[in-house]
């Protein structure tokens, strides 16, 4: 019996095994890309302490059973309280106390400023830039 003539790919209507493989490979590539480009999980946060521009301390924020207290030797000494994934200035000898009143910060990019000490506490880590709907706050 003679083998039926095979139609060319252009004329074929039904998918061939080769096409299924292409679809599979594209799907795999897409899934791989989705996985590679997935939103970063809430990453590590680090507390950075800068005194008049100089980095004087860096502390990773980690889940812990009890708060960790860090004394900072600034012109007006102050104490940092690291509690799990957040930090605040729990005590300061500075005259304005604005830094204590700022309270807790827990997101990358947030800062506590102690003006009399020229001190900045920054939370450093992966920032969720999508959630911010402004560039700057005035006031």
């Amino acid at each position, binding site marked *: 019996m003679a083998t039926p003539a095979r139609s060319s790919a252009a004329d074929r209507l039904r998918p061939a095994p080769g096409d299924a493989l292409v679809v599979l490979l594209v799907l795999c*590539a897409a899934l791989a890309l989705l996985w590679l480009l997935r939103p970063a999980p809430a990453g590590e946060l680090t507390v950075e302490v800068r005194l*008049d*521009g100089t980095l004087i301390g860096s502390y990773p924020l980690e889940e812990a059973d009890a708060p960790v207290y860090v004394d900072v030797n600034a012109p007006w000494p102050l104490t940092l309280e690291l509690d799990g994934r957040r930090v605040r200035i729990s005590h300061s000898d500075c*005259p304005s106390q604005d830094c204590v009143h700022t309270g807790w910060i827990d997101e990358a990019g947030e800062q506590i400023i102690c003006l009399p000490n020229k001190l900045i506490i920054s939370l450093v880590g992966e920032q969720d830039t999508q959630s911010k709907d402004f560039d700057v706050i*005035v*006031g």
Partner: protein
Amino acid sequence: MSSRAIPTFFLLSALLLSSCALPGGETSAAEPAQRQFFAMNTLMTLQITGEEAEDALSAAVEEVNRLDRLFSRSQSESDIARLNAHAGDGTDVPLSPETTELLSLALEETSATAGAFDVTVAPVIDAWGFGTGDAGQYRLPSEGELEALLPLVDSAALHVDTAGNTARLDRSGMEVDLGGIAKGYTADRLVELLGEYDVSSALLNLGSSTITLVGNNPSGQPWRVALKDPQDEEQQILLLSLSDQALSTSGAYEQHFEENGVTYHHILDPRTGYPAQTGILSVTVVSDNGARADALSTALFVAGPEQALELWRADNSFECVLCLEDGRILITQGLEDQFLYNEEDSHGYTCEIVRR
């Protein structure tokens, strides 16, 4: 796989990859250079984008520190400290051209605002303990004490010679404090300085209440500026969308204290010596000119809503947002197409456009 399927696979993959990779690449190319530093009694944050951003940033920080050394009242060798030290002794004190220019701009604002802005208010600021940043120093001065100090608050007794670069204070005990205008002026100088560099955009945040925007933001859109709710610093009341503009905000919430159930804030009326009580919670001024925006934010707060709007109607050089105690936010017409206000997230405020 058929001979046609292989190129199809690569083409599709390449498309997928390129569409995903582009935004990331663009972001890193437009990454701004940023620096934070303390100057003029505040924390400043400069953010600059462009080919020469780093060089421009270093030059800008240096310029801010240089001007701070001229304008500071507390540094004994500064122009202003020397001017104050010679108050009443008849000396025409030699000053830098920047200082005489700024003093002369301050005098113009005093005259334009009928004395609602006055840089000679320093003795009264000191009597209240404001300006030190030390909440422990805040105090309620007696009526007699303020009455004795008010004759020292008088811009007519400040003489500035911009040609000879000298200035003189007529009466002993007079003092100038440029805190209400120096940051805005500094921002203007920085914009001029950035013009010498290949810079596409900049956010000059000279202490959160004085901000100047150069160009658009790094993504090429107008800068989105959120206005702080004067009654809750964690919240914002509206968004302004701006390019190449200076902004300045004055709010009663910045420095204040309470005595016998009365709250006293730091924005003092130079004509009475007392905190201005005009029904305004905060004023934001938007202008091409940073010094003007800075001086006017204080002046409009002191003048009150009616006079503030009169000033606005008589002058095309600025727009403003007045946040009032009665819950209204008044936005002048020129900002009509540049603000975004979400009624559902309004924190009890209602918005009104004021027309000329």
